[in-house]
Every structure is written in structure tokens, then in C-alpha cells.
């Protein structure tokens, strides 16, 4: 690979990983989600630094070009992650709904009690 391109790629990946670490540090994201992203970009970094590994995986999976392998692999990972996120969102919807319902009923009971005690 072209050296310039290699350096540019490595720097981009490092910036992404750093961003995730900063987000984690500021408690903007949960560690269990951050670790997935760090893992994915760590893997990409490893493949860039060790070209031999990249080439052997490419031929093992039957791809002609390493770039094709990377694209297919990462699209698959992103689709998978999106499905997981959909599951998480659906779960949170359910939990939020339960909270809204229970709090609203409780609020009504509290107001009713105040009225009868007056």
C-alpha cells in the first residue's frame, strides 16, 4: 500500500478510537458499547499494520482483493451492529412506556389522595 495512504488511514483510525475514548471518559457512552467500536477499529488498525495477516485472511475467505474483503466484512459488521441497536431501542421503548404509565397512574393517585384529604 502507498505509504501516504497508509499513514492517513492509521491516523484516521487513531482519531476515531481517540474520539470514542474521549466520549467514554465524559460518560457520553456506555463502556459495553464503546468496547465494540474500539474492537472493530482496533481490528482494522491491526490489518493495516500487519499486511501479511490481511493477505492471508483475504485468500482464506476467497476474495481476490483485500479491499473487497475489508468492504464486505465491515458492511456486515455495521449491519449486524444496526440490528443490535434496533433491539436495544425497542427494549428501551418498552421500558420507557412502562415508566410513563406507572408514574402517570401514581401521579393520579397522589392528586386524588390530596383532594380527598382537603
Amino acid at each position, binding site marked *: 500500500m502507498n505509504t501516504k495512504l497508509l499513514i492517513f488511514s492509521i491516523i484516521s483510525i487513531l482519531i476515531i478510537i481517540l474520539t470514542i475514548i474521549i466520549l467514554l471518559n465524559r460518560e457520553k457512552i456506555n463502556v459495553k458499547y464503546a468496547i465494540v467500536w474500539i474492537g472493530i477499529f482496533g481490528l482494522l488498525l491491526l490489518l493495516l499494520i500487519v499486511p501479511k495477516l490481511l493477505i492471508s485472511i483475504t485468500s482464506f475467505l476467497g476474495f481476490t482483493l483485500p479491499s473487497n474483503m475489508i468492504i464486505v466484512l465491515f458492511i456486515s459488521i455495521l449491519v449486524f451492529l444496526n440490528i443490535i441497536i434496533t433491539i436495544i431501542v425497542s427494549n428501551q421503548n418498552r421500558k*420507557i*412506556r412502562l415508566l*410513563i*404509565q*406507572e*408514574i*402517570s*397512574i401514581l*401521579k*393520579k393517585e397522589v392528586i386524588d389522595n390530596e383532594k380527598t384529604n382537603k
Partner: protein
Amino acid sequence: MKILLIIPSYNEEKNILKVYKAIENFNKTHIIKYDYIFINDCSTDSSKKIFNRYNLNHIDLINNLGIGGAVQTGYKYAFKNKYDIAVQFDGDNQHNINFVKTIIKPIEEQKYDMVIGSRFKKKKKRYLTTKMRHIGIKIISLFIKLVTSKKIYDPTSGFRAVNKKIIKEFAFKYPVEYPEPVSIVYLLKKGYKINEEPVSMKKRLHGKSSINSWKNYYYMINVILLIIIIGTRRKK
């Protein structure tokens, strides 16, 4: 028999008092009394003021949940307050209070667990809906028949009465997405008995119906997918 009318209400400021007065009038002229609960689904109009000014029995949802979540709140309330029968009653003044006794009668007689007020049963059309909507309803009806072998003529009717067992069922688990047709399949699959009684409904005078026309196709696809999935689930 403790009977509760669950009235979900979203931006129905013009209809609230009409619905309330209909219930009041009914209770004054009949021996049997209906309790009611309005579920205010975080309306953005002056609904909340009206509920408070007239001191109507209501729950203000602290956030908007949509019709499914609002109705389930009503079932939770019914369950907590030990009601024997809960009736879903629309807040847009489309349902006629005089038909409540029609749909609760089979439940009082313990013949059925849920009774749906149907616009289409017994050929006579009692409420003119748009042609497209009627076709949509027929398709949903067909799919329900396919997976449960029970013919429900008006699966999208929001006018329905349920007994104590189903109040409990719904308080804990209610299909909040497309609840009207989906809950039918869910209950039939669990072995509950459902029937329809013919009723007539009024055309709405104020406010917008919750089903917009351009969303209808999306609605249909979602409902059919859910019916097939729930309908083909294995019994546990």
C-alpha cells in the same frame, strides 16, 4: 359488576365534554352505572384544563405514548381498581354509549372473554367508511381468519369490552403496536373466546382520526406481518 369505560384522548378538547355528558346522562337514567377514566395522552390542546376544570376522572400521561400505550394505562388502572369489565371507548365521540350494554352482555353471561362492537357484522352497513378502508379491513379480517380460523368482521374497531381475565392479561402485556387487530390474534391464540356484536357508530365531528390516508399501506403491511408472526407462534 364494576364496569369501567377506558377513554383514550389525544387532542380531543371539543369532544371531551360530549363524551362525559353522554356517560352522565346514561348513568342518571339507568340502574347500572358506568365508571370512566380518560387517558390524556399528553394532549397539546387545552384538554388538560378541561379535565381539571370539570374535575373529570382522568390520568395525564407525562409523555405521549400513542393510542396503544394510552389504552394499556387504562387496563392497568382497571386491574389496580379491580374492575370486572373494561370497555374501550373512543374519546372522539364516535362510539354510542347505548351500545355498551350490547357488548358487555355476552361477557356478563360469561359466554365470551372479549366482545367487539362491529360495524360490519350482519350485512347491514351501519357506518359508512371509505371504500379503501373497507377493503383494508377485509384483508386484515382474511389474514386473521387464516391464522386463527375465526372470522372477525371488524378487526380494527376500537369499541370493545373485556372481562377480568383479559384486563389482567392486558395490564401486563398489551400489543401497543396496532393493538386493535393484533390483540385479537394474540387472545385467540391464547385460547380466549372472542365475539362481535353489531353496533352503529357516529361519524366524527371534530378532530382528526388517528389513521392518516398516506400511512394506510404502511399500516397494512405492518399489521399483516404481525398477524402472521403472532398467529403462527407455537402455543406455550
